[in-house]
C-alpha cells in the first residue's frame, strides 16, 4: 500500500511531462531570442595573436563573415589548425605554434572586446568594430 501511495497517478505523470516540455520549449525560445546573431555586411575587425613567447601580432581585417571561424580563415597571414569536434573546430595551432593541453595545460584563449568568448569560434558572432584577442595560455 505504501508503495502504491508513492507511485504517481497518470494525471500527475502527464502534468510532470507537460512541465518538462514547457521548460524545454521555454529554454529553446530563450536561446532563439537572446543568442547572438551575426550581422551581414562589411565589417572591420581587429585580431591580435599573442604567441607562447609573448610576441603580439595584430591583423586588421574587413570581412562579411558572420562568425569568427570564417573571419579568421579570411586573414591571409594567419593560419589556424585544430581538431574538428562536435563543438566545432578546437583550435590547437596558430601560425605554427601548437598549444598542447596534454603536455603542459596550454591552450589558446579567445576573447572579444576584453571579455572571454562564451562561444566556440564556429558560433562566435562577428560585429563591426570587434577586437579579438587570441592568446597562448599555459598552466
Amino acid at each position, binding site marked *: 500500500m505504501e*508503495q502504491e501511495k*508513492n*507511485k*504517481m497517478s497518470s494525471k500527475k*505523470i502527464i502534468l*510532470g*511531462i507537460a*512541465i*518538462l516540455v514547457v*521548460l*524545454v520549449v521555454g*529554454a*529553446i525560445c*530563450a*536561446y532563439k531570442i*537572446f*543568442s*547572438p546573431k551575426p550581422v551581414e555586411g562589411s565589417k572591420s575587425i581587429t585580431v591580435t595573436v599573442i604567441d607562447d613567447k609573448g610576441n603580439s601580432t595584430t591583423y586588421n581585417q574587413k570581412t562579411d563573415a558572420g562568425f569568427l571561424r570564417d573571419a579568421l580563415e579570411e586573414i591571409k597571414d594567419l593560419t589556424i589548425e585544430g581538431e574538428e569536434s*562536435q*563543438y566545432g573546430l578546437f583550435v590547437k595551432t596558430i601560425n605554427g605554434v601548437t598549444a598542447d593541453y596534454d603536455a603542459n*595545460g596550454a591552450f589558446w584563449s579567445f576573447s572579444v572586446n576584453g*571579455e572571454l568568448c*562564451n*562561444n566556440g569560434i564556429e*558560433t562566435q558572432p562577428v560585429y563591426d568594430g570587434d577586437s579579438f584577442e587570441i592568446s597562448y595560455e599555459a*598552466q
Partner: protein
Amino acid sequence: MKHNKLDKKRKLTVNDVALIGIMTATLIASKMALSFLPNIEIVSLLIIVFTLTFGYRVFYSIIIFTCIETFIWGMGIWSIMYLYTWPILAIIAYVFRKQDSVWFWSIVSGIFGLCFGALGSLLYLFIGGVRTAFAWWIAGIPWDVIHCMGNFVLALVLYRPLINALKKLKKFSYTNSI
C-alpha cells in the same frame, strides 16, 4: 528497521567507507564511459539512486568524485560548479526520498539536466556579473536540452533496475556488517 537506524547515524563505519569508495568509483567510471557522448551522462541518475538508497553518504562520494575529476581534467571553473550542482541534486533526491515513481525521477532528472547550465552560470554572476552569466547560460542551452533528454531517457530505462540492485546491495552490506 535496522537500515533506518543506520541512516540516522552520522558516524561512518567501515562499511560506509567501502560503500563511498564503490559509489565514487562507479560515478567516475560511468562518467568516463559516456564521455564520448556530449552531455549524455548517467551521473545524475546515479546520484539520485545513491541518495535514495544510501542517504547522506552520497555527499562524501560527490566531493571525492569532484576531486578525482579535477585531478584527471585539471582545475577549472567547472570544479567549483560540480561542488554545488551535484549536491543540489542529492538534496532534491533526499527531500523526495519517499517517492518511488520511475516517471517522477525521470522528470526530475530531465529538469536537472535542463537547469545544469543555469546552475553553472550562477558562478559567473560572481566572476563576470549578470551579463556574462546570462550570455554563458544562453550559449549553452542547446547542450542543456540534450542533457535534459539524455537524463530523462536514461532514468526512464535504468532507474528501476538500478534502484532494485542497490536495495539488494544495501540489504546485503548492512545485514552482514562488521
